[in-house]
């Protein structure tokens, strides 16, 4: 297994940050592009945290955005409430960070609950349960009036700036990288490889499977919170199966178990979504082809099929981007 070097990771992150800030300051990147970059970063949080569950621990979760919804609604409710009570709260930043972390914790609790069926279920059956979980969350949110019901939670203050999202995303990547490369990560990996064998070498498989879900859900919840404070709305349809499937595609396209793969895929696919939107609009309006934006999913499905046919293990497979890894001596 390739090991990512945290210094190199930090350096790459900083270079990215400075480049984006400079390009944004000189006006090359307008507000529209900044939104896409911000969404890409949040996509990275979702994809990396799902990779911990699906890729490293080898469980199969289809309801990752359910965790994000829990985080988004929890943190969104907290900040809107405080914002309503005192519109010019002096400690905005503190409230915001606390709210985001509270969202992460709420999602982690949900992850703990959903982690339990994973002890008894494997593969397809676990996928069905997690899919059900995502839909349950969406339906519940659709029916609770005080979080807006089908209208969505409106009036969330806009706290998520590029800098804030960048810091949270970097923290997610580095913390998950540390986890994966610790003995905890190796235990999770051994469960994916062979659960029976890892039990027989002394790994408490129950504990690490639940832990995978809890940690994955925690970061997804924080990502959801950031998304809500970026778009200033949390809406049940944002967190349905479609959205979960998109994150899943990111993980599989990037490579199961590869963190850098997930990062690259999250950026590529978020930009691809926008590119396809522009392309499809052009085809419909200018060229007169009768298609709509729902065709993006057709293209995603095609992309996934092509990757499964020609590059079964995803773009990077189990490996990490080579400039960021520690070269290990063999033997």
């Amino acid at each position: 297994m390739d090991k990512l070097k945290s210094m190199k990771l930090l350096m790459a992150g900083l270079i990215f940050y400075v480049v984006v800030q400079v390009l944004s300051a000189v006006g090359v990147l307008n507000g529209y592009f900044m939104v896409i970059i911000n969404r890409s970063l949040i996509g990275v949080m979702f994809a990396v945290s799902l990779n911990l569950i699906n890729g490293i621990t080898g469980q199969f979760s289809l309801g990752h955005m359910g965790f994000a919804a829990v985080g988004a609604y929890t943190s969104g409710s907290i900040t809107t409430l405080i914002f309503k009570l005192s519109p010019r709260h002096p400690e905005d930043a503190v409230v915001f960070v606390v709210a985001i972390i509270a969202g992460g914790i709420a999602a982690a609790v949900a992850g703990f609950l959903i982690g339990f069926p994973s002890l008894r279920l494997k593969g397809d059956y676990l996928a069905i349960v997690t899919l059900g979980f995502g839909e349950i969350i969406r339906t519940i949110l659709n029916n609770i009036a005080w979080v807006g019901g089908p209208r969505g939670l409106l009036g969330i203050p806009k706290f998520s700036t590029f800098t804030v999202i960048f810091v949270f995303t970097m923290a997610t990547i580095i913390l998950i990288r540390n986890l994966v490369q610790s003995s905890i990560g190796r235990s999770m990996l051994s469960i994916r490889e062979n659960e029976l064998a890892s039990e027989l070498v002394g790994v408490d498989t129950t504990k690490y499977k639940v832990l995978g879900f809890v940690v994955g859900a925690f970061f997804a919840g924080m990502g959801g919170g950031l998304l809500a404070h970026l778009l200033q709305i949390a809406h049940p349809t944002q967190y349905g199966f479609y959205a979960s499937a998109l994150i899943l595609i990111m993980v599989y396209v990037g490579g199961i178990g590869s963190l850098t793969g997930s990062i690259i895929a999250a950026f590529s696919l978020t930009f691809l979504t926008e590119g396809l939107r522009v392309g499809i609009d052009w085809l419909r309006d200018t060229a007169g082809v009768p298609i709509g934006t729902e065709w993006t999913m057709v293209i995603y499905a095609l992309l996934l099929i092509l990757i499964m046919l020609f590059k079964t293990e995803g773009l990077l497979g189990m490996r990490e981007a080579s400039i960021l890894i520690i070269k290990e001596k063999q033997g």
Partner: protein
Amino acid sequence: MLSVKNLKVTYGNIAAISDVSFEVPEGKIVCLIGANGAGKTTTLRAISGLVAPSAGTVTFKGANITGTPAHKLVGLGMSHVPEGRRIFPVLTVKENLELAAWTVKDKVEVKRRLEEVYEMFPRIKDRISQLGGTLSGGEQQMLAVGRAMVTGGDILLLDEPSMGLAPVLVDEIFDKIVAINKKGTTVLLVEQNASEALEISDFAYVLEVGYSTISGPAKDIASDSRVREAYLGV
């Protein structure tokens, strides 16, 4: 060292083993022989906590360990080499062995145990950076045994180590089992290859459709007319 009394395991309504009792004295090799479906594997799985027995007791080093989860038993000194080897296919040979040292915190001790495995299985040492899944069947079996050695159990449970191996490799594996035993590890061996197993064992128990029936010193069992007819094919 290990004592099993009236063990019963059911999968749903079906009793895989109904009443199995036997003793494994310290420092000896004990084998359980029996035909397909006699309950040999289930017995091992119940001892090492992979399935919960519905009745009976398992005593290990004087303590009742019935129903203790497998990962805890590893720390108490029980090493189980499961049927079909179950090595980690995408980890290297070295990583497979290092992972087995999961419960050992002392790095010097881990290194010593790895050296012990390399000494016992020079072929494994040659393949140290190769992925586990690319080893031959015999090498995988050696790796699985080596992995159990690294976990450092006082008792080694072996489930069909000869399965799917060429006869020459079977001999080699059995020689290694004797060598491990000579170093002080108690061995509980489950085998379909009854003649080879009886040859290296001190005591033997015959399992028949969920019951332990005939038992005694391995030499007597090997000459028992019923066993010879049913399991040794002579």
